[in-house]
Structure formats: structure tokens, C-alpha cells
């Protein structure tokens, strides 16, 4: 029996894999998507905090699949398996990937993010490089993603807001909690401009996806109305409807086999339920497994033609991994000291804060200097009940229980609400942030796990602290109590990019400007791996946009 040869085989069903599948299936090509996790449908999602937020159910058990994380201890790099530390680097391993669980606060990168080196110059110890494409190349795809994913928002002119080809968003902003009145006024009195956050959540019905129903539990949970613009809802379902998509869940890809020097022939796939191995053949292959795992798969695919890993003639595969730098802070709005709005309005559940600040995206100040800054998002503290109940239950180093605990919890839940900010600034690529194969540890399928060295650049902390101080002032102006802010050098594991840089020079990059491997003519990498620098915004919109762009290049090659 002849084995099926798909036009395109995609490894990973998240944001980028979804965008490629959507485009190619709609153009009539036969596509296979290989996803190691299972399928959870819209009607099967629930707001079960124990299952979704407190156990490894939508991510692999760390005893089965894990990473090793290298950190510097007393001058030595020490690798610790994540099953020892509990520090998971998985982000939603089900059909649709982590896009199922995002909060959906999306931003476009700024045109200057594409030319950071030219604009701001080199920084010692950082491997900053300009992108081989410009914002103008990507803008039509940002617009395409906005429409197809269903990003809601409202455009307001701002010096650091990237230009748009479409005047405003088709979907108006999601409903907002009255706290924005207090936040906007506080920003205004400090001379800061607060903007409406674009959000990958529908405010109006779109096809068979229903508008947001304001469940109060959005981030970390799957969406039960289809409002959230996950790859599963917005891309894979329409792709399946074409009849051209073969969606293979529970399919772990062990290796890509390049029988010839410049061509991948098949993927070696293990059925995660039965353990049975099979080959999935295709004319083109797209790796979209999330940055650190995409590099790992290519490294694990080494063979006699590619002794250092597939598409690694430059030796840069896995290098220049980046995360998002920054930090966060929080303050409590107390019933007895609330300004501008009524306490009942503040306590209304489900509605979004929807505010971001771009004022410090670029800093050019007579005293502070000229440097790249970042974005700030405002939001309520996550409304998970167990995790809120568990917070700060220590007094003078002792756990609080009994009557005192009851009083503390009731007060925390009924007399105040916490508002927080998150800062996103560039994680500068550097020589001590990369993924390689661990020489010792293997996952349950017998494949070497990814070893991640995750050191940040000191400049990142400087920028984060600069912005954090300004955000604390906003919380103070709002009248928040017990304000606490921290800027950390620890990488947020859900915001990862790089490892397969794109560029024009094959000696220092893995992919060309189309995100095709320099070394292998039928291999593309569509996820955030391509990014030489990450901008100072969450990656998701750029991942969607670039994957639509890559899909168009694949269409031309097919």
C-alpha cells in the first residue's frame, strides 16, 4: 500500500501551525498537522481551577517530558531537570497549543523593532541584529491576523503606535470594568496616555464563534464561547471544514528524516497512546512546535547529512533564545479609600481592564538618556479563587490558620480588589541564553530533552526597573494600598522566541527571510523561533502575522 504523501506536514498545532494550515488548506492543499497533545473541544472546556490551573493536565507530566534548566550557581552552570524544580516550560500541549489559554492582550511590534541595531546601536554582551524584513513587509499580515483571529480594540493615535493599513478594528473593544475611569484619570493627572488594549477576544459574534460572555476566568482557561482567538477556533476549525486537513492529535514527532542532504522526506511519529511508531511523508515540512521545542526537534534530527542537527550548518541552531523581559506589580484598591467609582462597580466580575501604556516604548530623555523601553499592560489580579486564597497567608514568618485565616480571607475577597501591571521589554539575545540537547536526560520516548540556559542581560533589568517605577506612581495615584513591584531576571516560560534566527547570511542564521531553512529546501520554521529580537510586546500577534506570511511563501513554492 502506498503511504499518503501530504503536500505539507506541520509539526505543532498552535498559533503558527494553525495559520499555515488555514492558509494552505483554503488554497486546496492536503495538509497534515501533528500535535502531541489531545483535542479538547469548545464544549468540553470548563472553568475548573484545580484541573486547568493547579495540575499538569494540559501540559505533559514533568516526570514524562521535561527540560533541564541551566543556571549559574557559584560561577558554575548547573543543569536541573524541571521534574526536580517543578519549573515547567510547557505551555498548553493540546490542539491549538497555548493559544487556547492566552489572555489575548496583543500588540504589533513597532517599525523600529525591526531595526533595533541600526536604531540604537550594539550593546556590549548582546547579540542584537536587524531583521531581514521591515514592518511594511509584515503589516498586511498583522491586518490579516487581526481580521481572521478576531482582535478587538480601538485605535488611538500615539507617537509609538505602529501605523495601520486599516483605520480601526472591525471588532470594538470588549466591555470594560469601571476601574478604567479611575485608571485613565490617574494616568492623565500624571501626564501619561492610557490606550485601549487590542485583545484576541471577540466582542461581537463572528461566524460560529460567539462573542465573549465575560466569564471572569479567561487567561489560563479554554474559551467556552469561541470568543478567544485560539488557533483551534479561528484557524484549525475552518481548515478542517475545507476537507483538506488531517489533524493527528496524540502524535509526538521524534525526528524529521532528511534522507537527502537538502530535503526532508518524512517525520518519525510516535502515537502517544499506543507507543506505535510511524512515518508521515510530505513534500514540505513546517516546524511549529514553540521556539525551544522546534530547535530541539531539529537538533534531535541530526543524521549523516546533518551531523550537528538539521539545518544547522551555521552552528547557530538553538542559539539566541529570547524570552520577554520585564516585571510586574500589584496594589490593592480598598473599599474604604476608593476614589472616582463605586465599590460595587469595581467588584463587578468578568469585565476587562483593557488598558496599556506605550509612553515608555522608546525613551529619549535629557537626564535618563536614549534607550529602548517597553510596553505596560494593566489588568486585575487573576480571579482564580484557590490561588488568591493561598496568597500572603504568612505573618511574621508563620502560617496563618484558624479564626485569623477566616477573617483575613473574607476581608481580602470582599473589601478590596487588586489591580496589577505587567511590563514587557526586550530580552536581549546573548551567548548565555540558548537551547541545546541534554547529553544525559531523555524523555519518555527516549529522546534527549532540551537543555535551556536562560541568562538575561543586565540591561533588561535596568529598563524594567525604569518603567516599573513609573507604574508604581500610577498605582499610587489611583489610591492603591500595599503596592508591591518586582522586576526579575527569571524568564517567563510562556513568552519564548528565537533559536532559529532568520537572516540573509547563511553562515550566521538558520532560516532565510522567508523562514525557510538555508540548508534544506523543503523545510520551514513558522513559530517564534525566527525572531532575532522580540520587540517589547507579547509575541502572539507577530507569530500569527509571520506565520500567515510564511504560508504565502510556501504557497508560491508548492
Amino acid at each position, binding site marked *: 500500500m502506498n503511504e499518503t504523501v501530504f503536500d505539507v506536514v506541520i509539526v505543532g498545532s498552535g498559533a503558527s501551525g494553525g495559520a499555515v494550515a488555514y492558509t494552505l488548506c483554503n488554497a486546496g492543499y492536503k495538509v497534515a498537522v501533528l500535535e502531541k497533545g489531545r483535542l479538547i473541544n469548545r464544549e468540553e472546556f*470548563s472553568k475548573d481551577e484545580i*484541573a486547568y490551573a493547579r495540575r499538569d493536565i494540559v501540559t505533559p507530566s514533568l516526570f514524562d517530558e521535561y527540560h533541564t534548566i541551566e543556571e549559574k550557581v557559584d560561577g558554575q552552570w548547573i543543569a536541573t531537570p524541571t521534574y526536580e524544580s517543578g519549573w515547567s516550560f510547557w505551555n498548553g500541549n493540546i490542539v491549538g497549543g497555548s493559544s487556547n489559554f492566552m489572555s489575548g492582550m496583543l500588540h504589533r511590534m513597532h517599525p523600529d523593532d525591526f531595526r533595533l541595531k541600526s536604531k540604537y546601536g550594539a550593546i556590549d554582551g548582546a547579540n542584537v541584529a536587524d531583521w531581514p524584513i521591515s514592518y511594511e513587509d509584515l503589516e498586511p499580515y498583522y491586518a490579516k491576523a487581526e481580521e481572521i483571529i478576531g482582535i478587538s480594540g480601538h485605535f488611538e493615535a500615539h507617537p509609538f503606535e505602529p501605523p495601520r493599513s486599516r483605520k480601526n478594528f472591525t471588532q470594538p473593544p470588549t466591555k470594560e470594568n469601571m476601574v478604567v475611569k479611575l485608571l485613565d484619570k490617574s494616568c492623565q493627572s500624571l501626564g501619561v496616555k492610557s490606550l485601549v488594549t487590542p485583545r484576541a477576544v471577540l466582542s461581537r459574534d463572528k461566524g460560529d464563534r460567539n462573542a465573549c460572555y465575560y466569564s471572569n476566568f479567561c487567561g489560563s482557561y479554554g474559551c467556552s464561547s469561541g470568543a478567544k482567538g485560539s488557533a483551534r477556533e479561528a484557524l484549525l476549525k475552518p481548515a478542517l471544514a475545507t476537507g483538506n486537513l488531517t489533524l493527528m492529535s496524540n502524535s509526538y514527532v521524534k525526528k524529521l528524516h532528511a534522507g537527502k542532504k537538502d530535503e526532508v522526506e518524512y517525520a518519525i511519529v510516535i502515537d502517544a497512546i499506543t507507543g506505535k511508531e510511524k512515518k508521515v511523508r510530505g513534500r514540505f515540512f513546517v516546524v511549529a512546535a514553540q521556539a525551544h521545542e522546534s530547535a530541539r526537534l531539529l537538533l534531535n534530527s541530526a543524521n549523516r547529512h546533518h551531523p550537528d542537527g538539521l539545518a544547522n550548518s551555521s552552528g547557530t541552531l538553538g542559539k539566541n533564545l529570547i524570552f520577554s523581559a520585564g516585571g510586574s506589580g500589584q496594589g490593592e484598591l480598598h473599599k474604604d479609600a476608593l476614589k472616582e467609582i463605586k465599590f460595587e462597580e469595581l467588584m463587578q466580575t468578568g469585565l476587562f481592564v483593557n488598558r496599556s501604556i506605550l509612553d515608555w516604548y522608546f525613551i529619549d530623555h535629557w537626564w535618563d538618556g536614549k534607550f529602548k523601553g517597553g510596553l505596560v499592560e494593566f489588568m486585575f489580579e487573576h480571579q482564580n479563587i484557590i490561588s488568591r486564597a*493561598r496568597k500572603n497567608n504568612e505573618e511574621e514568618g508563620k502560617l496563618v490558620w*484558624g479564626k485569623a485565616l477566616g477573617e483575613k480571607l473574607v476581608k481580602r475577597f470582599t473589601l478590596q480588589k487588586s489591580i496589577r501591571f505587567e511590563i514587557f521589554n526586550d530580552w536581549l539575545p546573548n551567548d548565555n541564553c540558548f537551547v541545546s540537547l541534554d547529553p544525559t536526560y531523555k524523555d519518555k520516548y527516549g529522546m534527549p530533552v532540551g537543555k535551556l540556559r536562560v541568562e538575561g542581560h543586565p540591561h533588561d533589568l535596568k529598563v524594567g526597573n525604569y518603567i516599573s517605577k513609573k507604574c508604581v506612581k500610577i498605582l499610587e495615584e489611583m489610591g492603591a494600598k500595599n503596592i508591591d513591584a518586582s522586576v526579575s531576571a527569571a524568564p517567563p516560560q510562556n513568552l519564548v522566541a528565537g533559536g532559529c534566527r532568520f537572516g540573509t547570511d547563511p553562515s550566521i542564521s538558520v532560516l532565510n527571510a522567508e523562514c525557510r531553512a538555508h540548508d534544506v529546501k523543503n523545510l520551514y520554521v513558522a513559530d517564534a523561533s525566527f525572531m532575532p529580537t522580540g520587540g517589547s510586546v507579547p509575541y502572539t500577534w507577530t507569530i500569527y502575522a509571520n506565520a500567515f506570511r510564511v504560508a504565502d511563501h510556501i504557497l508560491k513554492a508548492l
Partner: protein
Amino acid sequence: MKRRSFLILGSLIGLSSTIKAKSPDSFGKSFKEVEATIRAVQEHMFPSGTELPSAREMNVTKFLFETISDRTYDKDIRAFVIEGAKELQVREKGRFASMSPREKEKALRRYEESSYGQNWLSRILTLTMEGMFGDPVYGSNVKEYGWKALHAFGGQPRPKNRYIEL
């Protein structure tokens, strides 16, 4: 810090064989040996007459056993829950469950002085809160009393099954 050493450091009795993976049956047996102690700790942390429902009325011990027995629970921490209870039994010469509330408070505060004890108590507190404030589908948070006490309710849709069993 490696988790395994984090879980072991500071224990008086050291690590017994329970830390090794065991069949569900033998785990059930190990749990039986410490059940009264764990129940007494939970009831001390969540007594009746506070602004929160009591441990006694919320089936939190059954919840704790069921949730740590589930395959989704970290097996090292599962063993630690048993070990830490044994440690408390040894420290208090098997008397903990029958102590007066005042004696229990003293015993737990003594236990808390070691980082091992603090870790274990924190774990029991967390597991108890998971039951009390998690979805009632897990058998605790009876009649949503936990949510009602905090005026905070889980979102819709609510789970029909535990642990996303489809």
C-alpha cells in the same frame, strides 16, 4: 534547589520507602496510617465557628486523599504528604490527634519551626483550600459553602467531571 532534597531536608525520621512509587493499593494503606493525623491538622486549621466553613463539614480529608491519589498529582509530593504526617506523629509520640486545641496549636507551631515542617503544613493548608474553594465536583466545597463565604464563585461552565476526563 532540587525538589527531592527540598522535600527531605530537615526530616527527623528521614526518607522511608513511601517516597518510591507504589501501587494505589499500598498508597491507600499508607494513607490510612496517617489519616487521623492529617484530619486533625485540617480540622485545627479550619475549625468550626470561623468565617469559613469547617474542615469537618467540607469532606476535605477525603478530597485530600483522592486528589493526591490521582495520577495528575506529583508523585514526590504525594509521598511527602504521608512522610510529613508520620514525622508529626513521631514528634508528638502518636498523640497529636487526641490533643486539646491548645496543645495542637503548640505542636504545629513547634513543627513549623523546621523548614520541613513549615513546608508540610503549607502543603496541607493548600490541599485543604483546594478542596474548600475548588469546584464541588471534587467532593468538597459542599453546597458551595467555601465560595459563599468568600463571595467568590467559580466561572461558567462548571466542570462535569474531575480532571478534564472527557
